[in-house]
Each structure stands twice: as C-alpha cells, then as structure tokens.
C-alpha cells in the first residue's frame, strides 16, 4: 500500500512529462502546417489540390487553373505567400551585414524600397535569390525560397545587428492583376496610388499596420502585403469584400507559375539548384550562370563570394548560362533536352508553356556555354508529346530571346490605372 501511494505521484509526473513532450511535437502531428489564411483558403479549395511549400499546405489550384491564371491577367488574383521564408534583420549594422551577404549594393536601396537580389557562398555559388525590403534605415526584411537562418546568424558575427526568422509571425499576400490597385484603393488604403514600382509603405489595418509594396511575381500590376499573423483573416476579408465587383479571385501556384514564366522570373530549385541543396558538383551555379550577373557590384566593397566570382570571370570558368527560349509550335517543351544541330546535347528546359499573353511557345533553359552565350544559332528542343499512350517526338527549333517574355505597361504605370 505504501508502495502504491508512493508510486502514484511519480507516474503522474511522468505522465505530465510525456504530455508536455507530445505537446511539443506538433511538427509531426501536423505534417503540413496551415498558414494564417488557411480557414479562408480551405473554404475556397474546391479541387483539394495541395502541395508542400516549405512545410506548409499550399494550393496548386483552388477551382480551375486556367481561370485562376486569367484572374491574374484580367482581374485581381489573391495568392497566399505566407510560407515564403522571411527574416527580419535590424540594427545599426543591418545595411553593412546585408551588403556583405548579398550581391547588390544595399547602400543604394533607400528606405521604403525593395530590390530583387541573391546571395552566394564563399565559392561564389548561389545560395538563393530573394527580395530585400528596406523597412527603415536600420530595418530590413529578406524573403526567400530556402531557409538561411544559420547562414545569416553566422554572417552576423561581428555586426551590431539582430537577425530573426519571422516566417510564422508575419502573414503575406500577393494581390496581382490589372484591378489590384482599384481593389486596394476601394479597400481604403489611402495613398496607395503613390506607390511606384518597388516602393513600399505602411497602412493602418485593424488597429495595427499592414506593409504594402508594389512588387510581385507576375510581371503584372500588383502588390504584396505583409501583416502580423493575427490580422491575417481580417485583411483577407477586407480585400475580398472590396474586390468583389472587380473580379478578385484566390488562386493557387499553378496559375502563378505561368505568370512568373511569362515575366521571365526564375524559381530557386526549379530553374537552378541552390548551393546548399546541390549534391552533384556540376549543379552549382554562379550568378553569371543564371542570369544574375547584373546584380554583382564590384565597386561596393567586399561581399560573400566576391573573390571566387572575380576569379571565375578572369579564368573564364563560367560554364553555364540561363536563357529564355522561343520554341516553334505550341506544344510546351517542359523539361525537354536542348540540342545543337539536332545532335549535340547542350542543355535542359526547366520551365515551359504556351503563353496566352505573348502568343508564343516560351521556355527558360540552362545551356552549357558557349551555347546560349556566343553560339545561339541552330538550337533545337526535343519534345516528347504523349499522344494516347504513345510519345510523339517533336524536334522543334528554339530561338534565344530576351526575358521577360511579356512587357505590360500597367505594371509600372503611374498612377496605376483604374480598371
């Protein structure tokens, strides 16, 4: 009896430990996290077509891929970008740290501005690309595809700066399409018309603020909105209500992926392999090899990979090039092999589509130099078109063309047009 009474509290304590442990294990009880917008998205998800975006349950499509795409191009499309990795970098040395970590000159990025940038490891291989938001003189938000907290923290040693992951704390929405400006204006974001492309500003929302930038991943008129997670649903509702008569639609990634390809934009680990993910040595890419050479600023002082990039340029060790292709016909050349003179394999298509806007069969491809660089004639792609359980092999001529594949005046028009 004495034993039994003694044992009980021990068992209780053990039970408490176990339940505490179980409570801390949500990461594998919920294998795909929901974003702060999940209740709204779930309600609209007629196709139940999900994929895994950085651990989050994100929609490929919600109701119809085609119509979702056209919502971007003719109405206003609302896309949940909360799973995007977000870092808050703040402190007197934030600018210096980011100047050392990223390729572009951060001193030229004024407060309330955004730029597209990329960063490399010591060997000059691209770790990721992303957007850098300068929220104030000393506060930045870095958004990217992959996670980089250890890299950023190790980079921050010796700098007076605080680096924090805010992916979960901050919800994000992309509102893209010709009526997006009108939707925001009608939602009551006073002064939104003053935002030029790559500008950002704070607007009041629900007792707090929402940070809105005129940025996006579609090549269209559009905005990105960042808000504390607890204000996410009210922001969604505010936009949906004001956008009702302007054709606002929630969309999934398939539609966005088409729009970004028309805009000529790359996706890390789709169009190139990031340095920390690459297992094979020849998959690593320097900025010059994926069309990001323009970001490299040799005048700004030291930055990660500078030495290696300079050496590769000097010794002509750049082996690849990323190009836009226009391909004959109308069959998308997704993951097709690129040939020179129909015989020699010189590269691979990483993304392709028939572009309804450009009315062209377009693609992004990685080629082995000099092909795509100095040798651009006589390139072909071999498309395997499945036709009722039989491959029809199409050898189509490909032409290297400039990106973006479409240029929409409304993207940059000031003030933005009221559709």
């Amino acid at each position, binding site marked *: 009896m004495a034993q039994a009474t003694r044992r009980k509290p021990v068992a209780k304590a053990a039970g408490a430990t176990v339940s505490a442990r179980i409570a801390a294990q949500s990461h594998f009880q919920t294998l795909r996290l929901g974003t702060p917008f999940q209740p709204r998205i779930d309600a609209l998800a007629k196709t139940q077509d999900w994929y895994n975006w950085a651990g989050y349950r994100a929609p490929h499509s919600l109701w119809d891929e085609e119509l979702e795409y056209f919502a971007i191009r003719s109405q206003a499309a609302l896309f949940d970008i909360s799973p995007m990795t977000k870092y808050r970098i703040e402190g007197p040395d934030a600018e210096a740290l980011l100047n*050392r970590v990223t390729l572009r000159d951060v001193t030229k990025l004024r407060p309330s501005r955004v730029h597209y940038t990329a960063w490399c490891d*010591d060997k000059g291989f691209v770790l990721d690309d992303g957007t850098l938001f300068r929220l104030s003189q000393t506060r930045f938000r870095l958004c990217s595809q992959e996670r980089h907290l250890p890299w950023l923290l190790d980079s921050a040693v*010796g700098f007076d700066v605080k680096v924090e992951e805010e992916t979960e704390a901050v919800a994000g929405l992309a509102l893209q399409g010709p009526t997006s400006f009108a939707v925001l204006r009608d939602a009551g974001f006073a002064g939104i018309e003053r935002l030029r492309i790559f500008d950002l500003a704070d607007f009041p929302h629900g007792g707090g603020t929402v940070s809105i930038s005129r940025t996006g991943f579609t090549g269209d008129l559009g905005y990105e909105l960042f808000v504390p997670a607890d204000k996410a649903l009210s922001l969604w509702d505010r936009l949906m209500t004001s956008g009702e008569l302007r054709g606002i639609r929630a969309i999934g990634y398939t539609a966005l992926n088409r729009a970004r390809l028309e805009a000529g934009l790359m996706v890390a680990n789709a169009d190139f392999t990031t340095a920390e993910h690459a297992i094979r040595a020849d998959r690593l890419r320097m900025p010059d090899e994926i069309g990001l050479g323009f970001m490299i600023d040799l005048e700004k002082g030291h930055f990660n990979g500078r030495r290696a990039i300079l050496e590769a340029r000097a010794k002509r060790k750049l082996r690849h090039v990323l190009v836009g292709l226009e391909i004959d016909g109308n069959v998308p050349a997704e993951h097709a092999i690129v040939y020179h003179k129909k015989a020699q394999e010189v590269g691979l298509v990483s993304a392709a589509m028939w572009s309804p806007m450009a009315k062209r069969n377009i693609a992004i491809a990685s080629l082995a130099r000099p092909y795509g660089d100095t040798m651009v004639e006589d390139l072909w792609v071999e498309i395997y078109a499945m036709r009722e359980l039989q491959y029809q092999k199409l050898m189509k001529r490909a032409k290297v063309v400039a990106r973006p594949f479409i240029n929409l005046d409304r993207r940059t028009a000031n003030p933005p047009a009221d559709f």
Partner: protein
Amino acid sequence: MTSFETIVIGGGHNGLVAAATLAKAGRKVLVLEAGGEIGGAARTEEFAPGFRASSVAHLLNRLHPDVVKTLELERHGLQFARADFVPSVALSKDSPPLVLHGAYGEVLTGASSSEQSAWKDLRAQLLRYAGILKPFLSRRPPDLAGMSLLETASLGQTALALKKLGKEDMRDFLRVLLMNVADLLDEQLEDDRLKGLLAFDATLGSHLGPRSPTSLLGLYYRLAGETGGTAGAQVLPQGGMGAVVAAIRASAEKAGVEIRTSAPVAKIIVEKSRAVGVALDNGEVLRANTIVSAINPATTFLDLVGPREIDTGFMRKVKNIRMKGDAAKLNLALDRPPQFTGVDAASHKGRLVIAPSPDHVERAFNPCKYGELSPEPVMEVTLPSLADPSLAPAGACVLSAVVQYAPYALKEGWDAGKPKFLRAIMEQLEAYTPGIGKSVVRAELLTPADIETRYRMPGGHWHHGELQADQMLVSRPVSGWSGYDTPVEGLFLAGAGSHPGGGVSGAPGLNAARRIIAMKG
C-alpha cells in the same frame, strides 16, 4: 604614413624567421611587435629578482634545420653539439628513475634488459614512422585543388618513402597512424615509467589523454623534430629560449629587417579585397604590399581584418578552430638546487618528467574534459640554472616546469583555481623532491588564462590551435586555406596556427616566407 614592401605582424620566433627569410630574399621588411620585447612565448624573462627563466617554451627540440641554415643561425651563436643533448628522466615514487640518454633514449638506463631491447625496437620504429611525416614539416601542405608538379612530386616521394619501409612496416605505419598512444605502448612495452613518459610526451600541449584516439600523432610530431641534426634530441639553450630568439633577431637585423616593439596592430587595412597596410593602436597607418600575420589566425581574421572583408564560410571555419590550452607554466625561484630522489647530478640537468604511468596521465586528463583541474598534475621539470648559472643568483636555482592539465575554461574560474592548482603541483613536487616547498623564494604560475593575456595567445594555447588530426596539414589553420595565403589578397599567415604547428621550430614562418617568395606576393 610610411611604406614598406612587407610588414610582419608579431615578433614571435615565427614572425622573425619569416621576416629574416624575406629580407634575405631582398625585401624591405618591418616587424611590428605588440609587446615591449620580441620573442613571444620564447623569451627569457626575469620572474623574481635575479631569477630568469624561459617564458613558456623551455626546451629546444624542434628548431628546423632549414631555419638554422637559411638564417645562418650557427654564425649568430646558435650551435649545438651532442654534448649539449640533455636526458629525459622518468620519475617514479616507488622505484628509481629511468633515464633516456642522448637523443630521445638512444641509451636507456634503469630498466630491465628485456625492456631495454623492446625500447630499442620501439624507438627505431617511432623514428622511422616520424621520418615519413617529417618532410611535410618543411613545405606547404598539398594543395588538393590544384597541385603543382613540384607538390605532386614531393607527395610521390612520401609514397616512395612509405614503400621503402617494406610491406609489413608500411602496413603497420598505416595501422598505428591514428591510434592512441597508450594502446601502442601496451603492445610493446612493460615498464610503466617509460610508458608514462611517452604518454606524457604524446599529449603535451594538446587536449588529449593517452587513451584519446589519435594521441600517438603528438609523439610523431615531437619526434619529427631534431636538434643538431639528430632526431629526437633536446637541449636547454644557454641563456634560456630568449637566446634562440636573440640569434634569430641578429640574423634578421643583419638581413636588414627593421623591428618595432610596443607597436600593437589594431587593424589590417583591406581595400577591394586586398590587404594594403596596417593601422596601429595609436592610429598610425603603415602601408605595405604584403602583410604577414605571424600571430594567431583567429585574432588575425576576427579582430584585425574583421568580418566585413571576409566570406561567411571562411569566418565560420576560423571561429571553429579549437584552441583552449591545457598547459600551465611554473617558474620557481629556489634558494638552493632541489634534489630529486634517486636522480644523479647529470640527470638533474635534464628534463625530469612526473608522469608515472599512462593511467596516471589519463587520470590527470579526465577532470580537464569537464573544465576541472587535475588533482595530481603531470609535468616536465627543468633546472636550467644548473647548466647556466647566469639564470639565478649564486647558490640559488631556477625551476621551470610545464604542467598539465589546467583547462583554459576552468569552471570555477582561475581566480579560485590558481592557488589550488599551485598547491596540487607543489604536492607532486614535494613527493619527488622532499623539502622543495621550503626552498621556494617565489613561485610564478602562468595558467592558460595568464598565458593568453601575457603572450597574446588566445586560449593560452602554444600551438595557436589544437594540434590534432582534424586541425593538421591541409586542415591547418582551416581547410582550403592551409598554404599560408588567405582569402585576403596580400595577406599571409606565418604563425604556429599554420602548418605544421607550434613549438620553437620556425617552420611555419619559413614555409610562409618561401610561399610568399614563390608567389611573388
């Protein structure tokens, strides 16, 4: 603002060797030493009125022959003959001492005849194997990314040397290479005193016990050194270690090297990824084409260059260099020479080692893993004033000892730990030389924390980075940058933190200078 061709930061022996070698190749060289005196941890200093001792390094056993030759040190008064070699004495509480005479025990006395013959075999084997590694000391580690013909050829020579061992010996070399020293000793020897001494030598200056994997490498490193052309030989330089540095300095100055003391460098100035000069503590700026840092690699990059000029991956590697020392230095001013029980007069002039068995050394190491002191520390003791009376007042004596294990990051802190450790050391000494405590006029104990402050050696580590397999050769100071050049163009490393490592060898300084000359850097 003044301009030089080359500035060497750090007037320790490696900095001076690098400077002298570069000056002999026709360069205009300036050495900047932060302290009031050059020599770093290889000085002779007065620690009590009339008593002088070598600062940290007190035995010369690895000054590289190429350094002696290149700097013509013999012409500058540094000459050693066989008669100068001092014995090693393995002390024991319960039996008479065992003495290794000549160069690391060419003759062994005090052991059984079977042990003598076992030692003869083991010694020959150890020297043979150390000899395979020896050529690596005096050249850059192989550059795995882009090996030159010369490098490939010299690696080939190592392969050939291995092959020359014969099949059985070669296999055995590879078998034992990464072994722990205790297991190897147990295979071949019986005598605890002998095994204790070898276990002590293998682990001296590293964060390893004799039963830690790879601890045998430390013994190879020790035996790859030579003095007066004889492998394994050791001497107590007349005038202390400062005399060795004085000879190097004389050679450097003869070659035209300019030396400035009390000139601490605050910053290495980098412009467009290239080192162009240094700024001193007082704000003075000195420009040069080549900057050679013969100080600690972590200090060089984390403090002097700073993270803004360096890639994150490289900084990560530098930050991860392990360099927490475990060795303390004891200087005792004694009013009369001590008498170690059972040790004859000649052996008193040698190296007296208190490490009675490998188990004893291992037990001394155990607490240090957890940031605690060895209650029964192991040590090597020298009485330099016996052979060089100038070091002590008439009739008095200097005792200089290197003692392990004194963990740099002592949990209780060194304020509390230092008196405790001194007591533990004195207890050990008292057991081997009864009455010594009463003859102490002054005791100076330098803990790793003291060594760090006094000699600007982070972690108080005389190798400027643990000398273990993962921080050797191509991984020293960090992988990818083991060849003395650095990611900052025009900046080179030349200190003990670089290959091959610490000890008064001059090898890092010489190798670095050779590299700079070869690169026309």
